[in-house]
């Protein structure tokens, strides 16, 4: 995987050190940028994110990255969204009312139920539906207070449970959206990153 061109989007105040280190361990040479031209052309794109959805969306719009990300996903170019990155792809969030997401997933993100420990912080069991190709059963590291519960049509789903069932990850071809942090999910997370890179490479060759 040496020399793999991977771009990590700079989503405002997000801390990117762990993401960059995680993809470096998987053999890529990550660059960090918020330039839309680079984002559309990069062989692999990672949309990370921590913090609140409103601020992150504002930053993406200011740099016209919202359109670029939607276009990449529409064309099935290798793209991975992580944590808040997944939530940005939804229609909206209870966390930032009045601030629209990209709407690639039609559902809205809602806070975990009242009696649960929030944020959900720690390792939770991920159970992929049988049509998943990248996602495998195992434990992933989560740090989130909001989650998507309704599966969008046309995507393969992996589920997890915190009070009730929610979407741990979605995949379609080389597009992968994870509510958990693969870069902090030990060997299991590293395996997922490597399968995503391998699938992206394969897809490129067949085009």
């Amino acid at each position, binding site marked *: 995987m040496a020399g793999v061109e991977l771009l990590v989007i700079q989503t405002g105040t997000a801390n990117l050190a762990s993401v960059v280190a995680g993809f470096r361990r998987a053999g890529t040479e990550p660059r960090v940028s918020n330039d839309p031209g680079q984002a559309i052309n990069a062989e692999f794109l990672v949309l990370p994110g921590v913090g609140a959805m409103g601020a992150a969306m504002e930053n993406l719009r200011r740099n016209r990255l919202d359109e670029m990300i939607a276009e990449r996903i529409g064309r099935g170019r290798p793209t991975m969204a992580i944590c808040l990155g997944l939530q940005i792809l939804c229609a909206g969030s209870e966390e930032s009312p009045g601030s629209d997401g990209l709407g690639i997933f039609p559902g809205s993100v809602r806070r975990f139920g009242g009696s649960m420990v929030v944020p959900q912080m720690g390792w939770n069991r991920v159970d992929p539906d049988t049509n998943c190709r990248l996602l495998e059963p195992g434990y992933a*590291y989560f740090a989130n207070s909001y989650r998507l519960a309704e599966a969008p049509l046309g995507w393969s789903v992996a589920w997890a449970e915190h009070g009730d069932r929610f979407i741990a990850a979605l995949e379609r071809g080389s597009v992968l959206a994870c509510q958990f942090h693969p870069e902090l999910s030990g060997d299991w997370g590293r395996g997922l990153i490597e399968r995503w890179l391998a699938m992206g490479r394969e897809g490129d060759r067949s085009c």
Partner: protein
Amino acid sequence: MLTTRIIPCLDVRDGRVVKGVRFQDLRDAGDPVELASAYEACGADELVLLDVSATPEGRSTALEIVRKVRARLSIPLTVGGGIRGVQAAGELLEAGADKIAVNTAAVARPDLLGELADRFGRQCTVLALDAASRPRGGWEVVVTSGREHTGNDAIAWAEEAARIGAGEILLTSWDRDGTRSGYDLELISAVRETVSVPLIASGGASTPGHLLEAIRAGADAVLAASIFHYREYSVAGLKEFLAGLGEEVRQ
């Protein structure tokens, strides 16, 4: 379902892992990068690195250690010790920390928790709360490595901190830390009943049974240092013990 986390803690001073009894009498326990990798390989769910350096030189060494640990580590890393503001927190996050733990500075100025949560997110903001039991019941917040008693009620502080911005509480019993006599279970229960953010129990573990008691008292995660550093128990062995008694752990 969320699993119970086991978190080894590395107290680091001037580049080396040390562990003291009641934060004093520090003994050398090894190289932080080597220890961090070994703990991950053994099944640790997360690591906490507390910088107990007393000098500016020690502080910059800590940043370098965080960078080195991050390059190798693929589980979450919380860093604490002497963090006074958003800028210092930002530097540690840039070096590779995933969460920032604040203690003395947050007691002096609780708004710091709100500033960290606004800037980096609540999931990134950890309150380290050191509590000492009071002779007539209840607990008091202690700061500056236990040297200073604040008079503040520990349970009320936990509640206020969670409201202002703490997304997790690392709760250390000052009476039990380093004594190997088990966690303060009443303290854990009292904080658990008050806050809904994740709770990490710390201070006093020396047997697998101690970890189980803390989990049953309401801790979402258990932190320990010396029982791991001196290889009395492995993380994997402890998880096997807990799983055998019906606790959910990642194996």
